[in-house]
């Protein structure tokens, strides 16, 4: 049994993005998703700083200071891209126009609460950026994160103890071990990596898991078929 790499989690998530969706990819692990978007689908990437239709990283030497993403990294524009100001950008977010936002997470609770912006309740300059707007605004929030923290602590919990980003907003979680829907009855596992048992996954999780009928294998799509 081998947990998925960060790339493999991103690749798995990318498969579930429908043709025609407008998607915001949060800073960090979610950014990886852009590298695995399925061919043949029009997937329009949004960035908080005012663009829909972000293209890939430009070749070295062709960066334009006026073309950066929310992580301040250089980007390009696709044909059909549009530019707008910050009020419009967050109007698009808050108004529910984005089909999907993928965010990183520190903790997800079984009611969909998300903590992803500050590990420390007493941080004097806790920095939220646009995460709270995305959490309440996008039509669905999928979280992409490691199933456990480096010290082994569970991150899927009955209740978050870190500061919340948003209440009840998470619809699905993709981890290195499983794909888990957040339902009104709590966590529902729909896929696990090869060799993982329900008991073991439960042992690494801080809230009760249910398992979907026909719970499948979570593939590593970064490996040659």
């Amino acid at each position: 049994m081998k947990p998925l790499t960060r790339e493999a989690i991103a690749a798995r998530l990318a498969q579930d993005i429908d043709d025609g969706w407008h998607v915001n990819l949060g800073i960090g692990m979610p950014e990886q998703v852009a590298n695995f978007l399925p061919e043949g689908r029009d997937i329009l990437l949004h960035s908080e700083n005012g663009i829909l239709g972000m293209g890939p990283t430009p070749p070295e030497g062709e960066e334009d200071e006026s073309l950066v993403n929310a992580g301040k990294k250089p980007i390009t524009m696709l044909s059909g891209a549009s530019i707008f100001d910050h009020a419009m950008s967050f109007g698009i977010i808050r108004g529910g126009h984005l089909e999907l936002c993928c965010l990183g997470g520190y903790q997800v609770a079984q009611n969909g609460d998300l903590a992803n912006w500050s590990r420390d309740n007493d941080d004097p300059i806790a920095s939220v950026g646009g995460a709270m707007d995305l959490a309440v605004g996008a039509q669905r929030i999928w979280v992409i994160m490691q199933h456990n923290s480096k010290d082994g602590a569970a991150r899927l919990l009955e209740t978050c103890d870190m500061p919340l980003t948003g209440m009840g907003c998470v619809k699905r979680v993709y981890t290195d071990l499983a794909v888990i829907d957040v339902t009104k009855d709590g966590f529902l596992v729909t896929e696990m990596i090869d060799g993982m048992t329900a008991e073991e996954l439960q042992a690494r999780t801080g809230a009760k898991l249910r398992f979907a009928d026909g719970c499948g294998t979570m593939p590593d799509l970064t490996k040659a078929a």
Partner: protein
Amino acid sequence: MLDRRCETIEVALDGIQDGASIMVSGFGDAGRPNYLLKGMIDKGVKDLHVISNNAGNGFTGLAMLFRLGMISKLTCSFPRGDLGAEITRWVREGSLTVEVNPQGTMAERIRAAGCGIPAFYTPTAYGTKLAEGKETREFNGVGYVLETALHADYALVHADKADRWGNLTYKNLSRNFSPLMAMAADVSIIEADEIVELGALEPNTIVTPGVCVNRLIQCRPVAENEWGVAA
């Protein structure tokens, strides 16, 4: 492939039912979605709640939907014009309800709906008849009125150029309410004078990003005699 284009106007207007709330772009004749309005007449839905700055004029466009008895409620800022006398009569007869908003309040309520703002305070109408029954509050000693977001089931919007992703530009003062309404309805339906190739619109000059748009149709002019019998 993301393609907002509809083959026919029937497809563009699919699903609109009696009792729907419908935003209609335009200020006077500038920016009126006349092709879509003609399609609404042909569709023959009724009991509509129309949200539009004006009620229209003459025997064309929006005015014809009123004359044909398709509209039971109007939210607007200025229900006068050609149709003023009739509207007064319909209101007195009870066949039409009219809600008058100050024009800027109406625009901001529509924007709020599109941008996920449920309510805001405005100084407009404070202390006037149009604020009667509304919640008020002072900030820094000045009085304000609480206004709520104005949503709709559908928006019918006229644009100048569009691409298949739904990115839009508008021509001059045809812009008016269009970008706001495109965002504020569950389903926004756009008629465009010209549908261009993806990439033909300069990204910095797109006014409405396609994410706000649901359906798109190539516009054609509606001739005077297509609107039906004049009274």
